[in-house]
């Protein structure tokens, strides 16, 4: 399945990626090639198959027994959580103004 620069632009907006026009063209060609390869999945009869999203140990998959006791444990101190942020004050992460 071929996708063009317009589709790439739409997907890039959904994914919050700014692209140049040249990148849109390049990615359109590369993603078309990958989607062309992926199209072979259409050859597989999946009419009686349930989808698999978790291939781990079924006993670990959200079973109640894997929940830990509901105890208060120390969390990350606020100043530690803020330390790696590009912009912050003493209490919070700072971002560009979104409400005028």
């Amino acid at each position, binding site marked *: 399945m071929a996708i063009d620069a317009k589709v790439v632009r739409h997907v890039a907006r959904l994914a919050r990626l700014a692209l140049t026009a040249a990148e849109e063209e390049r990615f359109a060609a*590369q993603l078309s090639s*990958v989607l062309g390869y992926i*199209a072979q999945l259409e050859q597989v009869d999946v009419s009686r198959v*349930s989808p698999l999203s*978790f291939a781990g*140990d079924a006993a670990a998959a959200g079973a109640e027994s894997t929940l830990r006791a509901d105890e208060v444990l120390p969390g990350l101190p606020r100043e530690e959580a803020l330390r790696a942020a590009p912009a912050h004050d003493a209490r919070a992460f700072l971002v560009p103004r979104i409400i005028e």
Partner: protein
Amino acid sequence: MALLPLGALAEALEGRSVSAQEALAACLARIGELDGKLHAFLRLTGDSARAAAAASDERRAQGRPLSPLDGVPVALKDIFCQEGVETTAGSRILQGYVPPYDATVVARLKSAGAVLIGKLNMDEFAMGSSTENSAFGPTKNPWDPTRTPGGSSGGSAAAVAARLVPGALGTDTGGSIRQPAALCGCVGLKPTYGRVSRYGVIAFASSLDQVGPMAQDVKGVAHLLSAIAGQDARDQTSSARPLDDYASALEAKVSGLTLGVPKEFFGAGLDPEVEAAVRAGIALLEKQGVKLREISLPHAPYAIAAYYVVATAEASSNLARFDGVRFGHRAKTGTLLQMYEQTRAEGFGDEVKRRIMLGTYVLSAGYYDAYYLRAQKVRALIKDDFARAFEEVDAIVSPTTPTAAFPLGEKSADPLAMYLDDVYTVPANLAGLPGISVPCGFTKGGLPAGLQLVGRPFGEATLLSLARAHERQTDWHARLPALG
């Protein structure tokens, strides 16, 4: 001394014929001498390593080692959060990021007394098969510096193969431990999904990612696995199943075990020299009394297609957290939306952008059923194929990769060609199964070939027994690349 494999070094430390400080100094000297040519390391943590080694020697002197790994130098793929140590996942967007906590596997290595010596290069966010997607420049293959070490754990494989460090941790989402281990000639194990905690491991595709050990020999891998495996309250997908005794598995007999040889893994695209090396390795196992049976995994040929839907879908979601707000790079630009878009444009490399967009596309309205849901159904069929095979066989043997190491730059402009290098490794990830790659020979050009064994869920001990039985009859793992 830097050339001692991990297990032998652990014994030397136990016998006090070598100190942890001497072992560390030998590694650092070898890194200083050779890593300029390889670029396996992104950064060294020499000061904290020296303190850890001194503390280890103190414990050994008092007869109180924490584990067999006490004092053994170990290096980490740069995907593991380590408190106080810059962790980038090979990405510009995380350049300068210093995590405030340790990944569970890092904490476990520390509690075992391992001496953590530095962070290793990788494809950005573990997306790639050559380490060329690192934002900080590629790693070179120790056997031929004009070739890639594979990826994404290419720094880990190159460092171990060049004996810069006796052991390293990598991660494997579609082959990222086994493929570089094969291309560099070391041993790499991807455990069963859920065997090792993913807490503090920068996520790529959460239903596929798994942490595993890499070392020069099977024993080293077994030691490291014993240290890192086991349930973790901080990773709900980690399994409560008890651990096997991996060290004693090395000595277990393999006669009477049945190995499946899947015909789909020996077809078109497999290099004849790699095939010959793998077949020779299989013959060595047969000599030990292992029975062979031809099997079929009919849906395995669809694994790469299913993988690039499932993995990219999960990646597009996981990588949404890199938005310039809480950590990492932030673009200096106008509105909040522009900040997000520009931060991600500046911070991510091309392959990461491609995968985020592919994942966004296959999850988007109108395409979810056709791509994502269908891929998950094919994934179920692939897992069923394995389950059926394991009714008859104890493990499945194949090449790890279709070819030996390829030249730097050869596949970097053709994403699909790069993806196909993982054709034999991806099926085990989709099915959540353990897999190991061991050195099984060399091409005429002097490049290593890897033999892969895939096991039943939580069948790591059987894989280690088979891998060690093979290794006992060869010296492939002991060959040293002529660096310098």
